[in-house]
């Protein structure tokens, strides 16, 4: 039985019983996840030795940054049904927080990393506390409003953030534990590690009882609260957790470009997160990762070939939104299921 089938069976059972069924994560499945994570990391780590392309390293680093961001957005959109238009503000917050700490204080990188996550926790908790009680499209509007407010602040507070020019002069990278982030290979390995660990953690969240609580809230929030779940608290928790992973993506991007720019906190980043989720699909855990790879390939290929990136991207979006009506991974999983059901049918 695949994860998806187990989930679906659980849902059907829950519906027939009228009782929300929370599946305890079996140890075996959790170990399987860790195994997959370790294997993925091993593959990523050996890639540079198989292909001598520096562009590949850059590509994977960018995928790590956007992949973490998009998957964290999916925790909100796909798993909890909270459509946030402003998630990019945490990407930008991560980049600026880390950049400022490294430029202004002499702390080691791991300390700056933790510090950035702390700042993100506080800010996202405050914003989340205000936003999560709003429903549907109003939640979307207010998150967008907050993002634009933060972007406006970044631009206006030029003495701290450098205004529209961003943090200049590069990000200092003191060596820590033998890791030198100014070495591109080290940066690559660390980004892959962050990506894999981040995805693993998000997977645990998604497949935990808390994750099922979120799905319940997505499907029917009032029923969830009747059953005794503190919907506001759950939403706030996932809002903060998603912000943390988005922040991490921002930190990776900050290290990649060696700076932080207001564009990192602009609504276009949120928009890209949404495209990625749509391209990859929101019903599978790895959908956003697939979407990230797809969007980045599309971006890189099209800008090599033409200046009219807008038309091409627009057509691709329409193809997925109106044509396929589902993301790539949703599509792949459905196709796989159809084939397998078809095989069962013919076997019978």
């Amino acid at each position, binding site marked *: 039985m695949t994860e998806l089938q187990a989930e679906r069976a659980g849902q059907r059972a829950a519906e027939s019983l009228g009782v929300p069924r929370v599946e305890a994560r079996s140890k075996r499945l959790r170990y399987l996840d860790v195994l997959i994570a370790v294997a993925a990391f091993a593959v990523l780590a050996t890639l540079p030795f198989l292909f001598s392309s520096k562009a590949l390293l850059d590509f994977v680093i960018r995928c790590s940054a956007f992949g973490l961001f998009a998957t964290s957005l999916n925790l909100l959109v796909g798993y909890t049904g909270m459509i946030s238009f402003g998630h990019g503000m945490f990407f930008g917050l991560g980049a600026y927080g880390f950049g400022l700490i490294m430029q202004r204080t002499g702390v080691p990188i791991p300390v700056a990393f933790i510090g950035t996550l702390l700042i993100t926790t506080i800010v996202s908790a405050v914003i989340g506390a205000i936003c999560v009680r709003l429903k549907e499209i109003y939640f979307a509007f207010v998150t967008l409003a907050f993002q634009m407010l933060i972007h406006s602040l970044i631009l206006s507070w030029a003495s701290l953030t450098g205004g529209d020019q961003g943090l200049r002069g590069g990000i200092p990278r003191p060596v820590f534990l033998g890791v030198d982030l100014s070495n591109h290979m080290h940066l690559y390995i660390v980004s892959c590690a962050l990506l894999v660990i981040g995805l693993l953690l998000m997977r645990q969240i998604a497949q935990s009882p808390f994750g099922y609580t979120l799905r319940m809230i997505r499907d029917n929030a009032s029923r969830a609260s009747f059953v005794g779940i503190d919907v506001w608290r759950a939403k706030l928790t996932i809002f903060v957790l998603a912000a943390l992973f988005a922040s991490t993506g921002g930190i990776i991007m900050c290290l990649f470009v060696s700076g932080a720019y207001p564009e990192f906190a602009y609504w276009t980043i949120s928009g890209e997160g949404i495209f990625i989720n749509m391209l990859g699909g929101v019903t599978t855990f790895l959908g956003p990762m697939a979407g990230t790879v797809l969007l980045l390939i*599309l971006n890189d290929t099209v800008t090599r070939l033409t200046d009219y*990136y807008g038309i091409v991207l627009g057509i691709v979006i329409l193809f997925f939104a109106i044509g396929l009506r589902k993301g790539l991974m949703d599509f792949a999983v459905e196709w796989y299921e159809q084939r397998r059901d078809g095989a069962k049918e013919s076997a019978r």
Partner: protein
Amino acid sequence: MTKTSKPGVSRRSTLALMGAGAMTIATPWVARAQAKTIKIGMPTILSGRVAQLGTSSRNGAMIEVDKVNAAGGLAGRQIEMVIRDSKGQPQEAARVARELVNTDGCELLLDAEASSGAFAVHEVARDLGVLCIHTNSETSSLTADPKQHIPNAFRSARQGVHDSIVGGGYAAAIAKAKGLKKWATCSPDYAYGRDTTGEFVYYLKQFAPDVEIISDSWPKLFQPDYTEVVTKILQAKPQAMYSALWGGDLTSYIDQANIYAMFSQMEVFAVNMADYTALTVVKNLPKGIHSGNRYIKTYPATAENAAWGDAYKAKFNEYPTNWSWENATAIMLMAEASRKANSADGKKIADAMRGLTIKSPFGADGSVTMRAEDQTLIGYAIGWGTTIPNEPYVPEVKSGDWKQILALEAEWKKTKGYT
């Protein structure tokens, strides 16, 4: 509820797309740098609201590249320009710059990005050590700030501080002559607008200490409606106004200020007015706006400059912009440095370029120099004059004095803590 249609052909095309994509990243991209051509990477902005920056930069560079190639290329190697769009996003600028060098085999970079993009590419140049000439960023700190000094980065663009020194001096003379004591400013709220305006005001007050800024407005870049700014200025009743607005913003502002009859009530100093893009687009250009030169084919009033402007117009069917000449200058510098060093190697070109003086149609005295100490351009034609709504647009230009500019710039650097 709408039904989902069964995907048929689209499945194939999706898989094809995935396949093509997978192959693109899996295949090692080893750039085949032919012995005969040398690739120069040019990240720039070719889409979005500032697309004209990229297109005119490209044109300015290409018109010189064709000349260099016709004369044999850089140390015998023909130049191949690889121009790519960063869409105005600094992270894209960084990515594109890295891709041009790492994947496409570009040995030199011509960075035609605007401010924040230029800083992003600067970090890439710092990391990869490749020769990089910034051609469009006018932010002084890019070369003035010692933290930004790297041996392989140069700037062939004008600098905001130079424009402000000349502008301040010019405006002060008029202020003293016409008794303009109360001034207002209106500039876009971003680094270029704020820095340029701040510097202009500083130098204006240096030369004309009686001047007082009674009102300052900071509209957002690309703001469509300037009504609150126009009324605020009119209310303060200044005698003169300075603005660093440019391009479409300047045009919108002039249109909107016109219907409030602002131009009959005060002298207007708009540093970016004398640019063909603005001059030829504004339909009801008021007479007598003071402006600095961006690119004007009649200033310097030399045959070489006029010929260059005409050749550009003939080839691209549009007038050159400020960005055009800055990019052309970068190619000219590269060509001359390569000739001096008899090499197309980035490091040797960089060494030859420091302190290099070349003949140039854009030079104040027929030449421009790449100053060695901070690797930025000096000696280019810089001056102010008043505009008229038809050719030659700026009939008389009062030139800036480079001796004075350099002296004041040195002082400015001291006050900023750069030296």
